[in-house]
């Protein structure tokens, strides 16, 4: 087990080198010059040249890459061209907000999705099955930003129950103050993912419920609840877990849109802004960070498989 984790972590290195080279090339090959964008259309060619020199953009791309990667390894992620701040603290701070949002939506979508899926499977073809699957379809089809705006208008403006945007009340910090701000963005982000999980749970449960050992359990006179939660769910969970693992990556991507709509100060808004401004150090820092966490999440999911299914062994 330990050697497996070690191997997986070692495999992280080539993945990350690949990611950094890819991001670096995409950013530097795409048209648009950060110096020109910072100085705006009004800048003279001379001042653009001067700034390019100050930012080290006049060096060949491979030299810029090596300069950047050696600095990153030494813990210096550079300074954002546009925000004039050090990249690493900025990314860490913003990633915290995205992490909270993603985690909350993951919880809502997993709990909601699995629950909906189980109920639909246990009462298949009933009214509840159809009703829940209809909700799931709606949740899946609705674009997150539009759903977000609807929630804002209904619960923020009309009912005035929850704040509309942001992460804290003006001038405040802390977890308790944040909770009401978290609800709407987390719900709108979880709709699509929750829908996929619900569909997966339903079909996986239906398959398991049709198997012989379930019939045996029922024949023994075991309570239906116990059959479903103890015997069926555990076996049905492996494919669900795979979907969940994949959907967490999807949540990170969806977070960009939700963060824009709700002015959630996460990494998504920062990245969009960074890309528009060709803020190379910032975008590279964000991608490096997100890629690392994505690979780590995948590793965690693989490890949880082994917990759930003793037949899966890692060597």
């Amino acid at each position: 087990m330990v050697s497996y984790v070690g191997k997986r972590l070692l495999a992280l290195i080539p993945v990350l080198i690949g990611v950094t080279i890819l991001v670096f090339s995409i950013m530097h090959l795409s048209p648009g010059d950060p110096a020109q964008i910072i100085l705006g259309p009004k800048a003279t060619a001379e001042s653009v040249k001067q700034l390019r020199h100050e930012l080290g953009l006049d060096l060949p791309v491979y030299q810029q890459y090596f300069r950047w990667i050696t600095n990153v390894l030494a813990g210096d992620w550079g300074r954002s061209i546009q925000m004039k701040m050090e990249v690493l603290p900025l990314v860490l701070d913003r990633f915290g907000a995205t992490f909270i949002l993603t985690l909350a939506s993951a919880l809502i979508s997993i709990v909601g999705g699995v629950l909906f899926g189980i109920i639909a499977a246990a009462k298949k073809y009933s009214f509840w099955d159809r009703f829940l699957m209809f909700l799931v379809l709606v949740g899946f089809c609705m674009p997150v930003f539009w759903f977000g705006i609807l929630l804002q208008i209904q619960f923020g403006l009309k009912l005035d129950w929850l704040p509309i945007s942001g992460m804290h009340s003006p001038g405040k910090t802390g977890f308790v103050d944040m909770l009401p701000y978290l609800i709407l963005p987390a719900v709108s982000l979880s709709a699509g993912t929750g829908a996929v999980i619900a569909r997966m749970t339903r079909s996986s449960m239906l398959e398991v419920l049709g198997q012989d050992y379930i019939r045996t359990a029922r024949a023994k006179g075991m309570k239906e609840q116990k059959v479903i939660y103890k015997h069926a769910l555990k076996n049905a969970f492996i494919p669900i877990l795979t979907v969940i693992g994949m959907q967490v990556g999807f949540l990170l991507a969806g977070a960009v849109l939700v963060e824009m709509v709700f002015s959630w100060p996460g990494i998504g808004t920062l990245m969009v802004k960074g890309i528009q401004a060709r803020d190379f150090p910032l975008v590279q820092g964000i991608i490096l960070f997100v890629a690392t966490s994505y690979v780590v999440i995948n590793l965690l999911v693989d490890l949880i498989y082994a917990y759930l299914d003793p037949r899966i062994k890692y060597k």
Partner: protein
Amino acid sequence: MKRIPKALLAVSLTVAAFMAGCSNEPAEPEKQPAQTEQTSSGEKVIVVGLQAEPTSFDAHQISDYNTSRAAMEIYDQLVQFKDESTELEPDLAEKWDVSDNGLEYTFYLKKDVKFHDGTPLNAEAVKFSIDRQIDPKHPYHETGTFAYADFTFGMVDHVEVVDPYTVKIVLKEPFAPFLSNLAMHAASIVSPEAVKKYGKDFSKHPVGTGPFKFESWTPGVEAVLVKNPDYFKGAPKVDKLIFKPITEDQTRLTELESGSIDMIVNIPPDDLERLRADANLQVLEQPGMHVWWTAFNTQKKPFNDVKVRQAINYAINKESIVNNILHGTGELANSPVPPTVWGHNATLKNYEYNPEKAKQLLAEAGYPNGFEVTYWVPESGSGMQQPATMAAAIQADLAAVGIKVNIQTLEWGTYLDKVFQPKEKMDMDMHQMSWVGDNGDPDNFLYAMFSSEQWPTAGFNDSFYKNETVDKLLKEARTTLDKQKRTQMYEEAQQIIMEEAPWIVLDHEKQIVAANQKIKNFKLHPTGVFRFANVDVE
């Protein structure tokens, strides 16, 4: 299944630890508790919803509106624009002299002014604030990237400290708009001690002399300014200003309508009517120092023929674009110079909508059946209003006179790269662009965009326009100190430019701010900067 709760416990503990560690601490967390208490004790607070996040609170590094709106109340300049105009009045300088040759500007500073950190404002601080930006050898030049240094101080030879409260700025050559430059953000006087103390992080710990002091900035969340009770022109009435970046137009509107923020900018034209009808809100508007145009490549066929350029101008229904696409958020232009800038020639008329005349001119120019062109359009961009919709309207109008327009849409960063190419590399037919004035001087509109010295990449003459009379007028006007003479020259230049039509001049975008009715005495300024020193909250 038994092992799962343990795993869950571990995960939730990690999460709890993580959350505790990343609650978006502001730049100066130690001030937080006191501030929170005050907020609930009925102090006067204004919450402003900005369209984008401020990028730096260092006045010398500002290059966009959102940042200047959030940051400029921290600072003062030697001179300032009067309320609601771009005429100048004293600010930190009590008075000033200009030498007869127009090269030496001597400023006599007010003596009782202190920076927010308690250090005195003096001639050394003025010299420091300018030298830091323009002298690459200055010990604090490395503390920032100064986007506007060249524009604001490019003509400055050196700065001399005459005595502790007298400072002399010497120019390389006479430059009439210079005094106006000194009212701009890059000419703000910053505390040298604070720059020395914070270095590159001065942008997170700004210190000026202005009516509000910097309190905290949490990127992506909010920036907080508090009143400067010792402000040399008297303490402001509002205790605290909070600027929140809310990127989504719809979210910003909903926040305003729900009353959780007090003031927003950049209102989508479609929502304006609804806001005007809301009794809780006030909508303020004023034509800004802005102009929107489509430039022709005047050095390339068919646009090197003035008749073709005029024909296109006649073919476009500009009034319809302003009324139906912009819903009155812009004012139809009659010259590249907006009416809020002195020197604007009010006697001129823009080309009226007359497709028949357009066809006739095209026939005279040898294109009775029209031609085909490519039209570059950005997706969006600062000051570009509704680029795609406006381009589609222009495309339809030109199709009606036989000109086939192929629209090519580009992302803003890519677009700028493509538009500002030297003439030999330039394959442009026509493209959209806009300009927001910096210092309220007509030179800032006319010389920058119509002098043949300003062809890209040297400057902003994106139509590669060249006319000897215009060149001569514009060059002379920027070195003449007599304002009346300058006005005449600029009026004449505008007339020639409108006749020669290197552009389709469309409109001047209005600045529109919607605010809660409880905000009193807020006035828009043509420069787009917000002034809160005299604003009150009911």
